[in-house]
């Protein structure tokens, strides 16, 4: 590729050189000059020139021009408000027009103090209003969903929010209704804006028209601190700011990592933080004192109790991990159990494999791809939501995105090897494979395919395995960094250590708990572990931790403690407990990380994992064909049931009333052929039966399903076996 042509543009008498085609707003910025904007936001697609705030004088043009829709051309001479009276008058005029119907209620507006309209009015606006006539008035605020409030009086109709809905998230739900001065932002018939990325419109809004119901009247900008950290609710690890006030998290904002999240955030990540204050949050250690009864213990008592449980098990210990632990926490636990007690048996949250490290790319590469093949049975948005936005961006840029059939053999691997698709995978440039679903063995079979296709040597080609948990890979790295012995489950299990609420909610872990003589659980919430744990130690959240996570790309990212947990954190008491077993364990994440890093991350220093983490380089695959054959599909009668864990589920989401409307519909997806055969009509309620359990679900037809398969969100499939009967 040849270097882009460089052009020279003069802005307010300052010459600046930029690549040809650079936006004029960015060109001015390169010259150190700000052109004010409201509607302009490059992440929303081509500029629309609507708000007219960016009017500038361009020599040779008959009238002032909107800078946002112009690009740098060689020899262009531009005058902004700083050197052109006409441009200054134009900006002043636009601010006056915008303010004509704006209520100027800044003192009671959440946006006050961090509001572009307020700032620009201060810098360019008129000192006095010339409007003496009535302003437009609307009913307000209107809840456009349980999480977002709309104030139509404050709205300046910049259309950022509707463009996001239409052309980024492509959910088509937030619209402008009516025309001209009567235009308003709305949803269809005022139904809730129910879509996984809805909250981004709050941050896009350049005024206080779209506000977070969680944050309304909670803080003023001068009272808050923004802590740069990483979301811990899915394997993407979106970079976020946790806004805190007086030791409490008040909101989560996107913190643009261009390679990871592009500055977007899903609603689970944005609105999920109030689980910190759930009413069943465990603040003190608990000991079971009778059926369904627990007593609070002091920490000294609790450590005595824990020590007792650990010693009594005589090494017959199994540890179940959640995948939400930090690398450091998982390592601390591993070091205590493995080095101190020789307890090597673990139930890791998911399969991991280093094989895909050979085909590593940033997530942002998806947007530049020519061909993307998505394999596996889970909807991408449910598993790693931001990846869904990258895929949409790819499609808009002209990429072909192929989704293999749901329920296909080997998750679709076979069809990706077939003549037609296989040939295209070989032929296209910038080709990507994405595995979204169970049975992917940490990406090993996908790596074999990528190796066959020669992806290691082809630039822009790569493969992603979308894990189930936020840090499953990091937890596995940490577990094996502590010791390298391997061990099956002891018989009988003397003690089951359950780390985290996700593990506590896992049916496999529950089954183990029934076999175990004793259970020690580390948990944030009481409901998942009561009544079956004997000792419960309080857990913490990703927002309360310092440490590292390894995300879907294999990128190590840094979590920073936004607020102190309401109890000692895991590292503090694990260090003490380890001391009782003669294990030297630091309570400091930096120290623990270095111990892991020496084994697993080439000695990378903790301080290097910065606020915007880089992607490690590719690591050649050790041998081709890593990863065994895919597990056999169980045989049975009726339709094979495919379940997936929905995005809006899990211990955090369950505790947030305002997110309940986002939980999945009680639906069963069927192939049109099966539906016809079973005489099931789309939209009708059907009964889905197996193992003597019957669930009433609404039928939805999905042409992407193979015949003989039914798909249901896991929370609506409780009690159902591997095969189900569906009847009208």
């Amino acid at each position, binding site marked *: 590729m040849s270097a882009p042509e460089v052009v020279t543009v003069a802005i307010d008498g300052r010459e600046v050189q930029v690549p040809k085609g650079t936006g004029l707003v960015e060109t001015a910025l390169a010259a150190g000059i700000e052109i004010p904007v409201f509607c302009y936001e490059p992440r929303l697609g081509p500029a629309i020139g609507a708000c007219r705030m960016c009017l500038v004088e361009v020599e040779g043009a008959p009238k002032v021009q909107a800078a946002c829709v112009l690009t740098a051309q060689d020899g262009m001479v531009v005058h902004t408000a700083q050197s052109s009276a006409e441009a200054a008058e134009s900006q002043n005029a*636009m601010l006056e027009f915008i303010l004509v119907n704006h209520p100027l209620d800044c003192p009671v507006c959440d946006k006050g103090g961090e509001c572009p309209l307020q700032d620009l009015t201060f810098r360019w606006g008129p000192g006095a209003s010339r409007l003496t006539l*009535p302003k437009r008035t609307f009913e307000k605020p209107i809840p456009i969903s349980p999480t977002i409030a709309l104030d139509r009086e404050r709205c300046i109709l910049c259309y950022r929010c509707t463009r996001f809905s239409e052309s980024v998230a492509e959910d088509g739900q937030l619209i402008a*209704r009516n025309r*001209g001065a009567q235009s*308003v932002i709305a949803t269809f018939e005022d139904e809730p804006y129910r879509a996984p990325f809805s909250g981004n419109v709050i941050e896009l809004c350049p005024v206080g028209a779209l506000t977070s119901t969680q944050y309304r009247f909670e803080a003023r900008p001068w009272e808050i601190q923004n802590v740069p950290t990483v979301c811990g609710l899915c394997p993407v690890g979106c970079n976020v700011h946790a806004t805190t006030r007086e030791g409490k998290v008040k909101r989560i904002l996107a913190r643009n990592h261009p390679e990871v999240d592009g500055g977007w955030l899903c609603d689970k990540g944005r609105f999920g933080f109030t689980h910190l204050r759930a009413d069943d949050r465990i603040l003190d250690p608990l000991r079971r004192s009778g059926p369904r009864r627990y007593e609070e213990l002091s920490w000294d008592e609790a450590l005595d109790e824990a020590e007792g449980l650990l010693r009594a098990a005589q090494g017959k210990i199994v540890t179940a991990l959640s995948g939400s632990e930090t690398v450091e926490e998982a390592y601390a636990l591993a070091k205590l159990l493995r080095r101190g007690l020789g307890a090597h048996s673990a139930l890791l949250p998911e399969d991991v494999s280093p094989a895909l490290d050979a085909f590593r790319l940033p997530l942002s590469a998806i947007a530049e791809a020519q061909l993307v093949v998505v394999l596996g049975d889970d909807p991408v948005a449910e598993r790693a939501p931001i990846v869904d936005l990258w895929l949409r961006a790819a499609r808009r840029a002209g990429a072909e995105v192929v989704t293999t059939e749901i329920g296909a053999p080997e998750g679709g691997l076979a069809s990706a090897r077939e003549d037609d698709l296989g040939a295209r995978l070989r032929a296209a440039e910038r080709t990507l494979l994405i595995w979204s679903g169970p049975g992917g063995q940490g990406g090993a079979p996908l790596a074999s395919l990528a190796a066959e296709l020669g992806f290691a040597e082809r630039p822009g080609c790569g493969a992603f395995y979308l894990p189930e948990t936020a840090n499953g890979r990091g937890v596995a790295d940490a577990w094996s960094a502590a010791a390298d012995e391997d061990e099956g489950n002891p018989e009988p299990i003397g003690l089951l250590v359950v780390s985290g609420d996700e593990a506590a909610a896992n049916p496999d872990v529950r089954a183990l708990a029934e076999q175990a003589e004793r259970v020690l659980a580390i948990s944030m919430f009481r409901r998942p572990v009561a009544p079956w744990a004997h000792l419960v130690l309080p857990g913490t959240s990703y927002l309360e931790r310092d440490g590292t996570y390894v995300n879907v790309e294999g990128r190590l990212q840094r979590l920073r403690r936004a607020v102190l947990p309401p109890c000692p954190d895991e590292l503090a008491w694990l260090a003490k407990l380890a001391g009782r077993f003669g294990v030297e364990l630091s309570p400091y994440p930096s120290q623990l990380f270095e111990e892991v890093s020496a084994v697993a991350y080439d000695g990378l220093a903790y301080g290097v994992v910065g606020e915007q983490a880089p992607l490690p380089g590719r690591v050649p695959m050790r041998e081709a064909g890593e990863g065994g054959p895919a597990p056999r599909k169980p045989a049975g009668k009726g339709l094979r049931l495919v379940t997936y864990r929905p995005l809006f589920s899990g211990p955090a989401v369950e505790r947030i009333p305002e997110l309940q409307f986002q939980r999945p519909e009680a639906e069963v997806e069927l192939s049109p052929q099966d539906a016809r055969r079973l005489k099931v009509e789309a939209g009708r309620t059907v009964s889905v039966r197996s193992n003597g359990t019957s669930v009433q679900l609404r039928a939805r037809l999905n042409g992407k399903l193979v015949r003989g398969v039914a798909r249901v969100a896991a929370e609506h499939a409780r009690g159902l076996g591997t095969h189900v009967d569906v009847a009208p």
Partner: protein
Amino acid sequence: MAAEPLVLAGADERDLARLDEYRAIGGYTALEKARAMDPRAVIEEISTATLRGRGGAGFPMGRKLSLVQRPEQAGKPTYVVANADESEPGSFKDREIMRRVPHRFIEGCLISAHAIAAKHVFIYIRGEYLAEFEVLKRAADEARDAGLLGDVTLVVHRGAGAYICGEESALLESLEGKRGQPRPRPPFPPVSGLYASPTLINNVQTLATVPIILEHGGQWYADLGPERSPGTVVYSLSGNVARPGNYELPLGTTLRELIYDVGGGVPGGRQLKAIIPGGSSVPVFTPDEIDTPADFDSIQAAGSFLGSAAVIVVDDRACMVQLGLRAEKFYMHESCGKCTPCREGTRWLVQLLEKIEEGHAGQADLDLVISVCDRILGKSLCALGDFAVWCVSSYLEKYRDEFQRHVDEGGCPFGGESSLEGVFAPVDTHARPAEVPA
């Protein structure tokens, strides 16, 4: 002055909405001739003719054609879109052309399609023109049945009531199934138009002139004169005039000839008060500007625009504040709501004009009207913002005394006797307003 009509030629004598009648006067031979020519030669003929667009902006059609990328260059199909969304108040010529010479119009579309190698022609006709839609549809069916379309698909697409869709980029948005809001330009339609593909978009009369140029040759048409904008124009004459209607005349007919000789003058012994020479948007002329020739350049030299050649005659019974208010309410109603100055400015101007008409305005409000106009002018995304300003600011400038009397006398000097007294504008009733009273 009594030159032969071109676009409407033959329509008085025959029912040219019928294919056989149109063919009897040589219809569709120009298409046959064009199809035998290299597309570049067709564009050359039209360029030689110096045919200027009759939709309002007067852009040379030949230049527009030559800007359209060919499909093989663009890697995309090309499209012809006919702008039949005639909505400028005072304008009704396209309606007459479509009703009376639909085949000539269709033939022009097909010749243009050949010129840019387009396989699709869309005629976007305003939704209110139901009778004309039916005539066109019938004519298109006849042409299709007669094999005249060849491999071209012709779709007559109805609008649904939005003035802004006469703006070409808004029309394209609307045709794509979206809200009819203008796009920033560049890119212009010849580069990126319908479905982001190269698109020729022209007014009905412009396209209906194309077969005539092909038939007689570009030079013949250019020689009709006047030099920079030859040919005829269909003047739409309306308002306080004895014989309103469409008159196809040579460009350059003076307003006096049009109003008095053709239109029979102002009826009822009333005095001429104002002339709006190009549809409701353009700056007004006072009676002493009546000898201006009504062609693109002369009208512009006199400070207004020929626009769609819709001439509205206003007699001395009309209150100019009421006229301004009525016009401004139209632009407020039709503002698409996309850009700030037009959306907010038109509403503010309506409020100010209401205040003046009601007699509550002070001296400062007159200046404020001018200031608000200045702050919209040249700053909006499309021309609608300018339209909303040209009319009102010219009324205030040229009839300042009358506005002043509203302020001085605390009310309308016509005392309820203006011909426009109490005229109701639809702006308050059409939308389902979310607005609630303060």
